[in-house]
Each structure stands twice: as C-alpha cells, then as structure tokens.
C-alpha cells in the first residue's frame, strides 16, 4: 500500500541503518542451515524430551502424562545408582589419568629429537582406530588365558587378573584402552606447548630455574586453558561412554548382557540406551536424559566457575 507513497513521506526513523539491516539478513541467511538444524534437531527435541520425561511412552501408544513419577522411580532404581557410580568412576578417575598421560606424552613429543614426526604418528594412530575394532582387539589382548597382557604379567611373576570377567578389573581394562588412545589429547597439548613463548623459558633459565620448576611455573599455567577444555570435554565424554562398554561386555542386540559382570560396565549412557531402545520405556529414559543433562551442566558450570583460580589466559 505504501509502495506508491511520495518519496518524502515522513517515515519512522529506522532503528538500524540500511547497511546494518542488509548485513543482518545476509548474516542470517548464511547462518540459516545451522539455525534450522538447531531448531529442528536440538531445541525441539530438547523440550520434547522434557515433556516425554513426564509421560509414560512405549513408542506405540500415545504418551500418558504421569507427572514426576519417572523421576521418583529413578531415585529408587538401583540400576540408576549403579550406572551413576560407574560413570562417576570413569569421569573422576579415568579422565584425570588419561589427561595426565596425554600431557606427559605431549611433553615427550615436544623433545627436539630426530624423527619426531614418526613418533607423533605412532602415538596418534590408536586414536583413529574405530572403537569397535580397538575394543575387539583389547578384548583379545585382555583374554585371561591367552591374552598378551596376562602372558606378559605372568612372565614377570605378577598377578594376572581376569580383566573383563572380574568386576573389579573391568573398569581398569577400560582405562588401559583409553590410555592407548590418549595420543589424540596429546596432540592438542603438543600444539599448545609449541605456542608457549620461548622467551619465558629463556628468562627462567637465566634466573636459574630448573626443568621441574619451569614445568610448574611456565608450562602448566600456559597450558591451563587447554587443560580446562580437555577436562570439560573428557567429563562430557565420560558421561556418554557407550560403545566401549557394549563391545567389551559382549552386548547382545536384545540387551541381554549389557553392563558386563555384576553390572560393572553399566554406564549412564548404556543404561539409558537399554531403557529406551531395549525396554522401550521412552518416558523413563527421557527423564534419565534430563538428569544427565543437569549433571553435565552443573559439572561444567562448576569447572568454569572455579577455573578462574587456576586457568591463566595469555596477555590478560
């Protein structure tokens, strides 16, 4: 209707200049694939799962509203506590161990040795092997009778546990496997190590600081942002451990043997998978998912909040 309005008709002053508006639509257009995907596959399912968590739903009949019943059941469910305990073990024992290992490997890889690229390749290689393949390999390596690990232990006169069959050793088995894959984290640390300004070390050396001192006072603070990043990613990863457990525990498609001996490999994500896709308790599993989300969110916030005390950002 206004198309034919006179050129000088007074219009409300635009909040944005023409250029700003043009950029707004351009930027939005370029970002639109992600925005559409975010709305359809993140936001909608995010709230969808909150709704489902308040229902009973088996995928075939319509969801039945049950209020907070699922959450009440969860708090009385032994499997929930078992899986939570197992997962906490991985998050707070395995993740720090792997983190320290990858940091040490990175320090070793930072040596100015001949053929260093060859070594870098070797350390990284295990982490590109599909988990299914490496879990199968480790199942064989950790075989109590014929596995390489126990043969070596026996040769050294050390105790030879039944690794994947003994509930006390299933999680250490997983740690062993994740140590083998710690090269990926090492490469990220290595890149960060190489970004530490050389002058710092030179200055410290002039002041007579030893190697140990330099590591604590220069290297670690310089790496602290990347340690924080890897810690957060590691924790979130620990809460989603699935494939390793599924293979090492010899999971059956009907979910029969998920969780391993005495449920020692029943991790949070494994339990959630089983409730949802084996028992078809979609509402209950959604409630589990929301509790997972809240735990991960709280842990991340806690880490970020306390990180101010130990994370140093260069130039700030």
């Amino acid at each position, binding site marked *: 209707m206004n198309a034919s309005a006179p050129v000088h008709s007074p219009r409300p002053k635009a909040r944005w200049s023409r250029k700003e508006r043009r950029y*707004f639509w351009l930027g*939005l257009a370029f970002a639109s694939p992600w925005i559409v*995907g975010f709305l359809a596959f993140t936001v909608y399912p995010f709230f969808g799962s909150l709704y489902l968590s308040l229902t009973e739903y088996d995928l075939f009949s319509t969801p039945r509203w049950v209020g907070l019943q699922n959450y009440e059941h969860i708090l009385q469910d032994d499997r929930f506590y078992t899986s939570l305990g197992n997962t906490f073990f991985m998050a707070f024992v395995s993740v720090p161990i792997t983190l320290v290992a990858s940091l040490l490997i990175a320090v070793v*890889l930072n040596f100015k040795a001949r053929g260093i690229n060859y070594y870098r390749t070797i350390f990284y*290689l295990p982490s590109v092997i599909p988990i*299914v393949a490496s879990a199968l390999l480790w199942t064989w390596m950790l075989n109590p009778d014929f596995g*390489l690990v126990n043969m070596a232990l026996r040769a050294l006169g050390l105790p030879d546990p039944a690794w994947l069959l003994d509930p006390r050793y299933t999680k250490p088995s997983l740690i062993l496997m994740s140590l083998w894959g710690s090269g990926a984290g090492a490469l990220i640390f290595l890149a960060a190590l190489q*970004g530490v300004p050389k002058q710092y070390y030179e200055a410290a050396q002039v002041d007579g600081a030893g190697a140990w001192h330099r590591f604590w006072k220069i290297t670690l603070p310089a790496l602290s942002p990347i340690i924080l990043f890897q810690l957060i990613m590691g924790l979130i990863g620990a809460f989603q451990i*699935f494939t390793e457990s599924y293979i090492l525990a010899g999971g*059956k498609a009907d979910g029969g043997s998920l969780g391993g001996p005495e449920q020692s490999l029943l991790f949070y994500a494994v339990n959630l998978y089983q409730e949802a896709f084996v028992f078809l308790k979609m509402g209950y599993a959604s409630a589990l998912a929301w509790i997972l989300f809240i735990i991960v969110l709280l842990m991340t916030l806690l880490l970020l909040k306390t990180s101010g005390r130990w994370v140093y950002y260069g130039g700030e």
Partner: protein
Amino acid sequence: MAARLKAVLPYALLILLSNVFLFPFLWLVMTSLKTPEEILKFPPTIFPEKVQWSNYQAAVEAIPFTKYMMNTFLICILNIIGQLLSAPLVAYSISRIPWKGRKIIFTIVVATMILPAQVQMIPQYIIFTNLGWVNTIVPLTIGAFFGAPFFIFLLRQFLLGVPMELSEAAKIDGASELRIYARIILPILKPALATVALFSFVWSYVDFMGPLIYLNDSAKWTITVGLQSFQQDHGAQWEKLMAASTIMAVPMILIYFFGQKYFMKSGSALTGFK
C-alpha cells in the same frame, strides 16, 4: 655423564613409549595371520609359524563384508557433502559478516558442543520414526547438512586468521557477499575444509550407536554394527575377528597417513579455545 643422559633420555623414552603404543597393532595383525591352534599356544609366538592369509578371506566371507563397507562409505560421503555445504557458510556468517546476532549464534554453537547427545536422542528417534526414516540412512546423514558445531567452530578459527582486507577489496570492486565467499574465501579455506572432510569421514566411519539405533535390517548395516554382530555370533574365532578388525582399521590408517597435517591443524585450532 649428566649431559649424555640428557641427550639420550628423550630417545629412550620415545622409543620405549612408541613400542608400547605400537605393540597392540603388531599383535592385531599377527593374530589375524595365525591358525586357531597357534593363537592358543603357550608360550605365545609373536610371528605366525605359517602365515594364514586365508583368515582374511574367511573373515570377509563370514559376513556380508563388502556390503557393510559400501553402506558405511555411502553414509560417510553424504556426511562429508553435508558438512562441506553448511559448516563453512555458517562459519563465514559468524566470523566475516558484521551482523547483529552473530555473537549469540556463536555462543549457542559452542554451548551445544557440551550438550550430551542423549538429551535429544529419544525425541529425534520419535521424529524419524514418524517420518518413516528409521531403517534408512537419512537419520545418519541428514544432521550433517545443518553443519556440526565442532566444524563451525574449527572453520571460524581459521577464518579469524584471514585478513578482512581481502574481502573489502573485492567489495569495492562490487562483488557480492556470496561471490566473495565462493571465489575468495572457499579457496583459501581449502586446507581447513580438508580437515572437516577428514573428521567428518572418521566420525561417520567409526559411529556405532547411530547405526545400532537406526538400522534394523542387517542388509543396511554399517561395518561397525556388522562386526559387533559377528563377534556375538562367532565370539571365539579370534583370528577372523582380528582379520576383520584389521581391514576395518585400514581406511582410518590410510586417511591418517595421507591427511596427517590436517589432523595436526585441528589440534592447533583447538588450542585457540579460550
């Protein structure tokens, strides 16, 4: 003496550690070449007494191996195409178009990286069920066409290092934003795009849970699910399992050797995570 130790120690550590890391590979390949009897022998042999290449043929014939591989590769290729179409566009938007809202978008992109997939998993499954997409490859590929947060972040890091003057010069010559993107930025981004393609391939190739949930029909299985099922049915046939695992690992190893520098690049981009 101390100086000598200092020169030798790094090499000693490197050699020792790298052997520890290498040995499982050696064991994998050697086991895959032994007879079932030799595998259970004590004391163990490292190298097979008589190399059993036939284990490989037996492993490949025990399951529809070629079919699983083809299914896997198809999913991988579609994921690469999807990511390459979308991720750089979004990264371009949040790093090179000065629009209000780009900071919010970037913040949400990073925030979604910490969102556990399990939270969206069940409703997504229900959506795909209602759309009739379960037991097809659509649920395993469609997500890529919207750009993964990790790749968007990675490409943004690369783009921050590209001088804005390049775009401004082109703008003065009257080039549109889309033209600048296609003609100037995408060619510069090539190494970063290679990184995205590599990681995209690796992720889809190793994915286990996705195919496990979405593919019921065994003819549609990927190699990860196929191999797991083979382990279930033929648990004790270690030589075949190791042969199949070796074949499964080969594409990853090749990709790593040819794309090494790209993997390293992502490491250095991630260190910019502050």
